[in-house]
């Protein structure tokens, strides 16, 4: 990887975590990243990126597998020419960390001029028993930051979540045949336990779709028990949750329960933050 690619990779991680790991107190993020890339070998940076992948802003897709993970499970679940940079087997659990080549073709709007920018896109795949998790770090939306703040319009993105998921499905079919996991049960059980509450919920009624958005800092279960009682019996669509424990490393997550998608829109300061939320949902599902 080039220094620029390593720097862009590290930029996807919370600055406090970078400072704490490399003992770079008081450095601005750009300075901290530049120092790490200059002083640290690539394997150390990749090891950090894999270990702390749960701290990134990410989209997690959960799948049921038709067969348990066992000998014969592919050493590269994405397949093609995308190979994992780190692969581990821990007991019956298989972990794969990828840095996928991702290229954005863009237009600089103020010039105007065509240009492009390349990233190494961190993706973590985890397979255990009959459950597959594909975790995509979400990329910076504002690519203008890489062009001195110039306004940028993205023309083409070379690879996206949908195309990676399709590759995984093709690699794992027909033996493991991944299908999106419905996590309504796990989410509702966790909500019932008051692990979290919701500032915005969307659900299906028999003949309509409802979105409930609470004002200010109000939450549905606490303030609208009537609404809560209705939606716990309905299929949940895109619903936001706020973790009630203020000390939790994860503050908010967004769930599309019928499709098995969990989105973590903010950094988590500790890797166990997002993994704990996912584990709790799976345990109760």
């Amino acid at each position, binding site marked *: 990887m080039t220094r620029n690619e390593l720097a862009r990779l590290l930029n996807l991680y919370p600055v406090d975590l970078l400072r704490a790991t490399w003992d770079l107190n008081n450095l601005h993020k750009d300075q901290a990243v530049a120092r790490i890339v200059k002083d640290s070998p690539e394997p150390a940076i990749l090891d950090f990126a894999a270990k702390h992948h749960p701290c990134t802003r990410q989209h997690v897709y959960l799948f049921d597998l038709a067969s348990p993970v066992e000998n014969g499970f592919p050493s590269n679940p994405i397949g093609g020419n995308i190979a994992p940079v780190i692969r581990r087997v821990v007991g019956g659990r298989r972990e794969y960390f990828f840095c996928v080549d991702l290229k954005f073709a863009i237009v600089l709007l103020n010039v105007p001029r065509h240009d492009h920018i390349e990233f190494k896109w961190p993706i973590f795949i985890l397979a255990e028993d009959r459950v597959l998790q594909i975790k995509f770090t979400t990329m910076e*939306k504002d690519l203008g930051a890489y062009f001195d703040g110039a306004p940028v319009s993205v023309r083409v993105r070379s690879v996206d979540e949908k195309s990676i998921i399709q590759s995984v499905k093709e690699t794992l079919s027909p033996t493991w045949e991944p299908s999106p996991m419905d996590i309504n049960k796990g989410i509702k059980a966790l909500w019932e336990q008051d692990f979290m509450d919701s*500032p*915005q919920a969307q659900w299906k009624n028999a003949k309509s779709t409802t979105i409930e*958005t609470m*004002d*200010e800092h109000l939450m549905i279960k606490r303030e609208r028990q009537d609404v809560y009682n209705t939606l716990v019996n309905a299929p949940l669509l*895109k619903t*936001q949750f706020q973790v009630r424990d203020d000390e939790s490393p994860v503050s908010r997550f967004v769930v599309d329960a019928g499709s098995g998608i969990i989105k973590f*829109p*903010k950094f988590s300061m500790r890797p166990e933050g997002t993994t704990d939320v996912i584990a709790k949902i799976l345990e109760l599902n």
Partner: protein
Amino acid sequence: MSLQRFLNLIDKTPGIGPFLAKREEIIEHTDPDRIYVENIRAFFGFPFKVAAFLCELAVRQRLFVRKFGLTCPQCGKILLSVDSEDDIPNEVACDVCEANERDKYTFQAQELERLIFYQLVR
């Protein structure tokens, strides 16, 4: 109790006529922290301007407090409520739009819509 006094105020206001039938209903169904002019209009069947006048009258009588709800131009959520326009900060973020990964989730004061509502003085 302020709501009862508000109902009495309606009864005594010239031209409005006595309020009778929905007295219990408004007490039962109105959130005393979020009373909108439309709530009053719908309950009593007054024209909107009359309902708005009564709410402002209730403010002057110190039965209600007027609040400004600042709403997100994208999702409609009240982000913040303030007592006067002077209390509106220059910039307000919408946590719901941020979590929904909207490109824009921070708004200048002039981008936010104002929604007036009233709170019952207890």
